[in-house]
């Protein structure tokens, strides 16, 4: 799986961090920061969930495998 975060769209709601802290973090200004753009299989379901929860649609899955 490969994911992308559009930091310009991020509104800092922190939904992704609450959902999968192993993959998503926020920088000091509250903007999404990816800890990895290749989440492992263990995180895949939670990452997909985080993508749907993101209120500003800043997250996308580039390759879902």
């Amino acid at each position: 799986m490969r994911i992308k975060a559009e930091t310009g769209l991020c509104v800092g709601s922190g939904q992704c961090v609450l959902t999968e802290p192993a993959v998503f973090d926020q920088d000091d200004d509250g903007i999404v920061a990816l800890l990895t753009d290749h989440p492992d299989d263990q995180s895949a379901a939670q990452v997909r969930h985080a993508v749907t929860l993101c209120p500003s649609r800043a997250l996308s899955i580039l390759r879902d495998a």
Partner: protein
Amino acid sequence: MTKNVADELAGLELPVERGCPFAPPAAYERLREQAPINKVRLTSGGQAWWVSGHEEARAVLADGRFSSDKRKDGFPLFTLDAATLQQLRSQPPLMLGMDGAEHSAARRPVIGEFTVKRLAALRPRIQDIVDHFIDDMLATDRRPVDLVQALSLPVPSLVICELLGVPYTDHDFFQSRTTMMVSRTSMDDRRRAFAELRAYIDDLITRKESEPGDDLFSRQIARQRQEGTLDHAGLVSLAFLLLTAGHETTANMISLGVVGLLSHPEQLTVVKADPGRTPMAVEELLRYFTIADGVTSRLATEDVEIGGVSIKAGEGVIVSMLSANWDPAAFKDPADLDVERGARHHLAFGFGPHQCLGQNLARMELQIVFDTLFRRIPSLRLAVPMEEVPFKADAVIYGVHELPVTW
């Protein structure tokens, strides 16, 4: 195209009073069953689209072609009269009413204050605050105790005061003015409360500009000075929003959460058995009550197709977060309060770029309050029959006026 039902409601005056305290108004259900998007007539005049489907609500709220600017002609206002609208138009806009780049410029500098990490660092202090007010409850022989005054209001008020650097000694003043602004008192009272609160906050920001402290506003002032963009009016708008949004909503949700759990003892048992379940219980209570229904209206700035409906530029749209949160297509058996539902996709904090800035602070306060209250006072119960609990059936922000409890 979805069938329009313009005449379904003779006049939709929002917020519609909730009949049953534990369910959306019957009219909401009826409309959603007909279509996820309907056209309704407003008592304030004109028509607006009424969005009650979960998917459609998310689509509207995430779409930049819908404006949040209440000052624009055609914006679907249903709780303001002409004089109040004039007052609104004469003030610099709150972040809530901005769009696009202007909204982003206002929100971006503040979101660093509300990161998950920063809030986690506040947890011990919030725990202290909750324990302090519960100590006071336990120290009194007086029964019953009004939980609203003893816990629900003071906890978020003190938390937001400390975060923002507002003197807690002023809490009676700003609590009463905020309550007045979101209740359906006379428009004169609402305008007066708004003006008084605005003057108080203007004064507060002026003081912080000359005597900074260790608080959010002082940090914003320092940040703006560094960038050479000190914007007093903008800071007053920000402070107004954070102070008012930061206590009334959480206070109501604390009270309703307690009512919800006490009235569903099997659910309370689940929460009491394992504090690890509290975060999901909080999500479910947020969904179930959706206290800020009706605050998410928009104005289409272009023609937009949503859920098979053509919304034309200049048409108003009212997104019902409450109705969307009870959409069976998104939440199975929505009328069941199920703390193990595990559903976080509710819209109680809104959706899109305006989604609640303080949502994770609210989550943490609610989790700590419910855990601590039921652990320290396990025999807590209502002191009056449920039908005597005074619910705020007609307020902009749902809640209870008072909550007599005993143990």
